[in-house]
């Protein structure tokens, strides 16, 4: 489980994250939702100390992360990056196996784990293992990114808009895969997105951030029923507004075609 207490990040006079407190229960997936610059990625990176907080504490499985060596903390926490960040000088298999290598697993154990993970993210181990990341499509690369985050069997996983740069169809397929993987593994996860539908599909609970502050946190249903303010209401209404827009465009076009 993950606990954030009074977490704050300042850059000079700018406050990126202000006094944020949250808990993510064991096995739960919490979505951090908000627009660009709301502080959601900063919050995520403070959990594994890719960004050091200005104030407040983060606990992972009860341990204050500021007391852990950063590299040991990060080997315990899987991280999937927005830009994937696969190492171009390593094969797909070497990329997935990197954290186990750092942890000193045996070659056999690593090879076995890599194949297991490739199968888990629905890639063929035989044909994918030894390829260069650049030979894969964007969707395949992101599957490898998720596999790499999972390699050392972390109990906690952080995902920073992992499917954000993919086309809608690929994104949908990866979301399906991810839902299944998480059900199988039961990891605790924090998932950053600005995509309302993705948040509703994946999140056990959703935390809405606005201007570095936590506006509301709750299950998708609770947020729908009782939005805390106008910002949350508008945000949650986005998919329906877009659907209505599509409907009206369609009927306009139908009208033109028949007229």
């Amino acid at each position, binding site marked *: 489980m993950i606990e954030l207490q009074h977490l704050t990040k300042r850059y000079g006079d700018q406050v990126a994250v202000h006094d944020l407190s949250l808990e993510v229960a064991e096995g739960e997936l919490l979505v951090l939702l908000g627009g660009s610059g709301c502080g959601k990625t900063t919050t995520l990176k403070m959990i594994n100390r890719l960004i050091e907080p200005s104030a407040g504490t983060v606990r992972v499985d009860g341990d204050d992360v500021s007391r852990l060596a950063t590299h*040991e*903390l990060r080997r315990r926490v899987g991280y999937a990056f927005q830009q994937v960040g696969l190492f171009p000088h390593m094969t797909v298999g070497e990329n997935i196996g990197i954290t186990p290598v750092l942890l000193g697993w045996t070659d056999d154990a690593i090879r076995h784990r890599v194949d297991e993970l490739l199968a888990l993210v629905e890639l063929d181990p035989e044909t994918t293992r030894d390829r260069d990341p650049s030979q894969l499509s964007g969707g395949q690369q992101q599957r490898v990114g998720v596999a790499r985050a999972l390699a050392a069997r972390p109990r906690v996983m952080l995902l920073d808009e992992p499917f954000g740069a993919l086309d809608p169809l690929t994104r949908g397929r990866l979301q399906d895969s991810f839902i299944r993987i998480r059900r199988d593994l039961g990891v605790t996860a924090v998932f950053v997105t600005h995509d309302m539908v993705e948040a509703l599909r994946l999140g056990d609970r959703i935390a809405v951030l606005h201007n570095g502050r936590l506006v509301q946190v709750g299950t998708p249903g609770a947020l729908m029923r009782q939005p805390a303010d106008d910002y949350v209401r508008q945000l949650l209404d986005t998919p329906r507004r877009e659907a209505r827009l599509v409907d009206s465009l369609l009927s306009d076009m139908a009208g033109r075609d028949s007229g």
Partner: protein
Amino acid sequence: MSEQLALLPGYLTAHLQLTLLALLCSAALSLPLGIAVTRVRWLEQPVLGLAGVIQTVPSLALLAVMVPLLASMRLRSIGFLPAFIGLTLYAVLPILRNTVTGIAGVDPALREAARGVGMTSRQQLWRVELPLALPVIVAGLRTATVWTVGLATLSTPVGATSLGNYIFSGLQTRNHAAVLVGCVASAGLAMVLDGLVRTAEVGLLTRRRRLVGAAATLTVGLYLYAAVTLAAPLFSNAARPVMIGAKGFTEQYILASVLEQWIGRETGRAAAQMQSLGSTVAFDALAAGDIDIYVDYSGTLWAHLLGRATVGGDRATVLAEVGTFLADQHDIQIVATLGFENAYAVAARAADAETMGLTRISDLIPLGPTLSMGGDFEFFSRPEWVSIRDAYGLALSEQRTMDAALMYEAIAEGAVDLISAYTTDGRISAYDLRVLEDDRGAIPPYDAVVLVSGRLMREWPDVVAALRRLDGAIDLESMRAMNLRVDVEGIDPSTVAAAFIATLGP
């Protein structure tokens, strides 16, 4: 050509030793420094700045400045060491700059990913930053390799043997075959070493172990060869050869060969030459004991070392004062006066001298503003020129400094009207020039003298005795004829020297 090729193994080996060791030390210095700079950002400006400043020093000057610098630290100032240090410093910038650029150019997203998967700072460096920066770092290494092979040819004037020996002596003695051999060998070596680095890089990038292995084996082999050949003299029982220095012009090459062959014939001792030394480098080398013998000229020593105003000294006085000074101050002895003078002289085209009625330098005084003069690299900054200028009140329209070997062409083509000729030079008659008489005695006498170190005096009296027998052995006509055979007929200096030794009788 074949006599030139016979020198190739020795020159190439020496060139390889210099290049490889300088590159190794430079890389050992620059790579860690480059990495440190990317870790401690405030170091970047001062470190790259300093390396840049070193690079802006002209390469020949950087090598030459090592000589007095090392001498002041009481280290061996002539030969391998100054060239090696100069080349090492010169190769720092390309390797350092590319290391910094390469590491700084790694995609920040990958740097963050490296941290994110749990790498320590050291693991980030070795597993991500260095492999990704490799192409840029190798590019710097290749630049440094090619530069160093080329620059190593400039180590000849500081007394280190290299392929530059071909080029320096070839240019002076108009031996184009020698220059060609030197250039081709140096370019070939640069291509081979560059190819080796390139092969290793391609092997690393494409993960072809065999390619990396082959390049690494060859490189290690070359380094072993360089190390073994460099260390061999230290363990050899053979007697140290008598080391004869030669400055970088034809007469000096001939005289060094004469001395070498004479010592061999008279004492049976092995002698070797250190050629194409800079003028002051030769004297410093003798004073420091890096060479044992060389030929210099009394007037040069008088003007440079004793700092004398030159008007009025006669041959005997100059010789005596120089001899006393050398013995007292530098433990150097004059063991023979060869019998000719190689004086600086002012020469004009014979045709001009005819039409303008020039026989003496003072005839130039009214014509001065219409005349231009060419001088060798030293001439216009030497006390002798100051003396001539002041004694005659000469004001010329132009003074041009050029390579001594080119001066004669320049005056023949009419690019200049006068040159600073040497009285023994065979080219004075070959190019139909006339030497103007120094009617006011502004130019000192320049007796050719054999200088030997105090150590040679004490350790090898037989060599000293043999050298003493050369006293008066070479007159002006013989010297001029020998110079002419090399400069104009293109005969090898050692061949000319051998022919001369044969005339000396038993």
